[in-house]
């Protein structure tokens, strides 16, 4: 119990004192996970919308694959990204393994199916005739898709939260493709794992609390936006 209390105290002291190392780790975590989430939004909303609005042979298989992808284990993603970026791998020449970019790629791969799956469900929930109504209002195909995305904005906000929540808290892929290099690829989750393994529970708890605080703050902002949009 003392360890936990000490950890929480330590967390606040690290935050209040603006400890440069902790600030650096936190900033990198936000930057990496934020960028990965943004990439996943572009790809996930795009493909999720396309699959929701079209019918083609094998669509059910594609939908099943997207849904399976929502539970993609981060360590498996980490493993394959490592293989692909390994010196002798297909993209080895890029020399980006153990860089923040590698973590962004891995996290984007984890978040994309989550965003895609939620987008797909959200778009499919819209009344089918709404598409015809929008076209009958004189919309081009692009305008129709944009209006449908706007119509599903509350559910898409949930996709943002789920995507960001999924990657800010994952550790397996980040440690495998980032290498937890101090001051370069060390993020909140990998730092927590390392401090725990060293027996520095107070620092580990401090980093955990910071991670929770950030996740909570970001979700609070998104939830407020989502609830403001909700019809009353």
């Amino acid at each position, binding site marked *: 119990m003392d360890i936990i209390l000490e950890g929480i105290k330590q967390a606040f002291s690290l935050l209040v004192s603006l400890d440069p190392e902790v600030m650096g780790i936190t900033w990198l975590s936000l930057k990496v996970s934020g960028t990965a989430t943004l990439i996943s939004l572009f790809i996930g909303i795009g493909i999720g919308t396309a699959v929701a609005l079209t019918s083609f042979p094998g669509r059910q298989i594609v939908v099943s694959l997207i849904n399976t992808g929502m539970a993609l284990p981060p360590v498996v993603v980490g493993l394959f990204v490592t293989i692909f970026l390994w010196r002798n791998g297909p993209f080895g020449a890029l020399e980006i393994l153990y860089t923040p970019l590698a973590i962004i790629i891995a996290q984007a791969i984890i978040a994309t199916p989550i965003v895609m799956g939620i987008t797909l469900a959200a778009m499919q929930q819209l009344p089918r005739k709404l598409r015809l*109504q929008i076209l*009958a*209002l004189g919309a081009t195909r692009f305008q129709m898709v944009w*209006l449908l995305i706007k119509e599903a904005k509350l559910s898409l906000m949930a996709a943002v939260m789920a995507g960001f929540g999924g990657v800010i808290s994952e550790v397996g892929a980040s440690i495998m493709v980032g290498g937890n290099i101090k001051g370069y690829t060390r993020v909140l989750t990998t730092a927590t794992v390392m401090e725990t393994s060293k027996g520095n529970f107070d620092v580990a708890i401090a980093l955990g609390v910071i991670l929770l605080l950030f996740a909570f703050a970001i979700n609070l902002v998104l939830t407020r936006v989502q609830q403001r949009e909700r*019809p009353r």
Partner: protein
Amino acid sequence: MTANDPSTPILQGENIQVQRGGKRILDVSSLKIIPREVLSVIGPNGAGKTTLLQALSRLIRIGKGEICFQGKKVGADMTPLNYRRCLAMVFQEALLFDATVYANVASGLKIRGVNSSEIISIVNTRLEQFGIGHLRDRSAKTLSGGEAQRTSLARAFAIQPQLLFLDEPFAALDPPTRETLLEDLNRVLRTSGTTAIMATHDQVEALRLSDRIAVMNEGRITQIGRPEEVMNHPRDEFVASFVGVETIIEGRVIKCERATATIAINSNPTALMETGAAIPCLEAAGQVQPGEQVFCCIRPEHVTIFPGGRHDRSSARNAFPATINRIIPAGPFYKVHLNGGFPLVAYVTVQSIEDLNLRVGETVIASFKATAVHMIRRC
């Protein structure tokens, strides 16, 4: 004919066919709509009304055929998008956006890139026209069914469509709401001179709003004409039964003199045994050939009942002794089912039922004029 000629069709569809799952669900050989006309498309569920509207508005792909709008072939002389920007559509569900009433009514104009000062002026006019000015800033998701459908109609009229498609717009509304909205729509349609095509399964709606009525069955238009023409002179048995002709009797023309035919009814022998009557014959106004098989259609409002088996002289050419089989309440009147050697239905007011003391099992005289019988030649 010129483009400005009011008799020039604003919309013309030729050989329109739509297939779904290998089955032809729409097959309309020809349909012309003239400017300022309101055409109602009536028919039972699954008749193809909605498919016809969606095909004519090019919201769905048509397998075959062509649509001409103001003399221009859609897809060749004008793009489907430019065509769709000349029309508006209101569905059974209001299908509003998750936004305010104002934003919803303005949506079609925004899509067209109309400038905001013009949008404000048009939207405010339409909001007032449909009595929803006070709901301007309300979220569309909080509206009642009637308010939502008013918003949907205001949105459709805001884009000043040259052609309006209405797909059962009142079907989901309660009767009082439907009544007031019907009146408002009729007023706006007439004052704006908008050409409209409305799908409905409600004949009253069709009669009140339309200049012409088209009856659909199994993807085809079986009859199209002025409302009184369709209602009083149904072309076939299906149209007759759908437009509310309760009595349809099959018979053979025995003779036809001075435009009045005598028709021997192909009666039900059991019914004849019950009444002990001979094969009944009825007279119908019209030109047919002896020996022809016909359907005789008699609307229930044209049948008069004389109680006590007595019938004084009148101009009605048909009078039959009949037994009352059933008396069923039907809103403001009763539906009286009679057996006079053939089944016959009459509408009788509540007042008349009480005054004449009509009872099941009673023998009465059922009478109707020869002009009330509409004959359909059997194919």
